[in-house]
C-alpha cells in the first residue's frame, strides 16, 4: 500500500497522544495546575494534530462530518466517535485538574478507557481488511496498542513501565513482521484464484499504459533490501535505544526527551513499513506477488 505521510503522521502522533491521555486519566501521575497544563497541552497537540493530519488524506473533506453516521458497521466511523468522546471526557477531567486542582478519578478512568478504545478502533480499520493479509491478523491491534501505551508511559514519565512496554512493543512488532511475511500465502489468494484461469498465469498486458488510482494506491512495492534495513532501524530506535537511555541515565529530562525522540522516529519507520510492505490482493491482477503462485 502507498505509505501516505498524512496517515503515518496521524497514527504515530495520535497513538502517543492518546497513550499519554490514558496514563493521565489513570492518575499516573496525578497532576494539577501548571504542570497538568503542560502535560495536557502535549497530549492534545499530539492527539488532535494527528487527527487533523488524517483529514488531509480525505479527497472530499467537506463530507467528513457524515462519517459519524455509520458506527454500527464501520470501524472508521467508530474511530471518529471514540476520538471525540475521549477528547471531550479527558478535556473536562483536565479542566478540573488544571484550574481547580480537583481530580475526578472516575471521569479519568472513563477517559483512559476511551483513549485506548480510540487506538484500538484505529487498528481495527486496518485489521478488518481481508484484502491486505499482512494487516488482517490479531497482532495488528496489539502493535498499535503497545506502541501507544509505550509512548504514553514515556511521555507521562513512568520510566519503569515505559521500559517494560517498550520491550513488549519490540516483541509485538517482531512477531507482526514474522507473521505478516506469511499471511499472504496463508490467505491463499494467487493470480490463479484471482483470474480462475487454469495453468501458469502471468500478466500479458495491463489495462492501460500508465498508472491509475489502484496501482498508485495499492500496488506500491518496496525494495526487499531496503525493507530489511528499515526494519532494523525501526526496531533499534523503538526499543533498545530508549530502554538503554532510561536504564543508564535514569528518569531525567534529557535522557527521557531523547528516548521520546528515538521512540517517535522508530515508530515512524515502523508505520512506514506497515504500509509500504502491505500487499493488497488487487496487485495480483496487475501481475504483482506472482512469486507466490503455485504453478
Amino acid at each position, binding site marked *: 500500500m502507498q505509505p501516505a505521510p498524512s496517515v503515518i503522521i496521524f497514527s504515530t502522533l495520535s497513538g502517543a497522544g492518546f497513550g499519554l491521555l490514558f496514563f493521565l486519566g489513570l492518575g499516573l501521575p496525578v497532576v494539577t495546575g501548571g504542570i497538568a497544563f503542560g502535560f495536557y497541552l502535549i497530549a492534545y497537540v499530539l492527539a488532535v494534530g494527528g487527527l487533523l493530519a488524517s483529514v488531509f488524506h480525505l479527497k472530499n473533506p467537506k*463530507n467528513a462530518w457524515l462519517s459519524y453516521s*455509520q458506527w454500527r*458497521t464501520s470501524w472508521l466511523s467508530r474511530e471518529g466517535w471514540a476520538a471525540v468522546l475521549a477528547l471531550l471526557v479527558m478535556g473536562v477531567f483536565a479542566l478540573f485538574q488544571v484550574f481547580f486542582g480537583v481530580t475526578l478519578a472516575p471521569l479519568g478512568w472513563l477517559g483512559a478507557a476511551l483513549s485506548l478504545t480510540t487506538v484500538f478502533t484505529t487498528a481495527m480499520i486496518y485489521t478488518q*481488511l481481508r484484502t491486505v493479509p499482512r494487516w488482517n491478523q490479531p497482532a495488528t491491534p496489539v502493535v498499535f496498542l503497545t506502541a501507544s501505551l509505550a509512548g504514553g508511559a514515556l511521555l507521562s514519565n513512568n520510566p519503569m513501565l515505559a521500559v517494560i512496554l517498550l520491550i513488549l512493543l519490540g516483541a509485538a512488532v517482531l512477531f507482526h513482521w514474522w507473521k505478516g511475511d506469511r499471511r499472504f500465502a496463508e490467505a491463499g*489468494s494467487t493470480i490463479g484464484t484471482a483470474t480462475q484461469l487454469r495453468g501458469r498465469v502471468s500478466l*500479458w498486458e495491463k489495462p492501460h499504459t500508465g498508472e491509475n488510482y489502484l496501482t498508485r494506491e495499492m500496488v506500491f512495492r518496496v525494495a526487499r533490501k531496503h525493507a530489511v534495513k528499515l526494519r532494523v532501524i525501526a526496531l533499534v530506535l523503538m526499543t533498545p535505544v530508549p530502554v538503554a537511555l532510561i536504564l543508564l541515565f535514569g528518569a531525567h529530562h534529557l535522557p527521557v526527551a531523547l528516548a521520546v525522540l528515538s521512540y517517535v522516529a522508530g515508530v515512524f519507520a515502523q508505520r512506514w513499513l506497515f504500509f509500504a510492505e502491505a500487499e493488497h490482493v488487487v496487485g495480483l491482477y496487475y501481475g504483482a506477488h506472482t512469486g507466490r503462485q503455485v504453478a
Partner: protein
Amino acid sequence: MTALPEATTKKLGLVIDLDTCVGCHACVIACKGWNTQNYGVPLSDQDPYGQASGTFLNRIHSYQVQPATGAAQTTHFPKSCLHCEDAPCVTVCPTGASYKRAEDGIVLVNEDACMGCGLCAWACPYGAREVDEAAGVMKKCTLCVDRIYNETLPEIDRQPACVRTCPAGARHFGDLGDPDSDVSRLVADRGGLDLMPEQGTKPVNQYLPPRPRDTLDDVPEDVLAPFLAPVDETPQGFLGWLDRALEKL
C-alpha cells in the same frame, strides 16, 4: 446505511465470457462514455495527452496462460464491480455513501455523502472502485442503473452500456438470483466461477472460463506445409525458356 441487506429480491449482475472476449476494449469506452454523461460526476482524465491517467469503471486485463502441455494461450479479462452479496466495500464506509440496494442487489455510491477516504477501495479485492481525482469522490460500476430501468430508452437499450456495445457478445446482463434466467442457465451450462472465492465476498458477477482448445490428434501438426513444398526446381517448355532467357540478361 452501510449495513448490508439480509437478502436481495433480485441479484442483477453480469456474466462475462472469457472464451469470447476479444480484448477490443469497446466496453471500456462505452462505459466511460455513458457514465461521463449520466449518473454522478463525470469520469475525469488527468494529463490525457501526456502521462495519461484517469477514472474507469471497467478495465480489461490480458493474461498469458501456460497450460501443463501445449502452447500458451492469451485470455482477455474484463473486470468491473461484481456487485458482491457480502460486499466488504459497503460495510467499511463511515459516511453511509456506499450501499447495496435491497431490491436488486446493485452496489452504489451516493456521491453527495462520500468524503473520499478511499477505505472502500481498500476493502474491495477486485480493484473495482477508484476515487475520481478531479471530483474527489468514489466512482464504481453502477450496473448502468440509469439505463436498465430507463423507460425513455428503446427497450433494446435497457441494458448496461458495456453489454449493449460488446461486438463479441462476451458480456451478458440479467438476474443471477433467478435460476431460470438466461444468465443463470448460461452459468450452469458453462461452469461459471466466482473470482477469489477465498475472500468471502460472494460475487454476483460470474466468469465463464475459456473452453478447452481444439486438438488435431491424427493430423500432422503442420497441415499446410505439404502444400508449400517447391513444385518444380527446373522448369521445362515455355517457362524453362523464359527462365533461361531471363538468366542471360
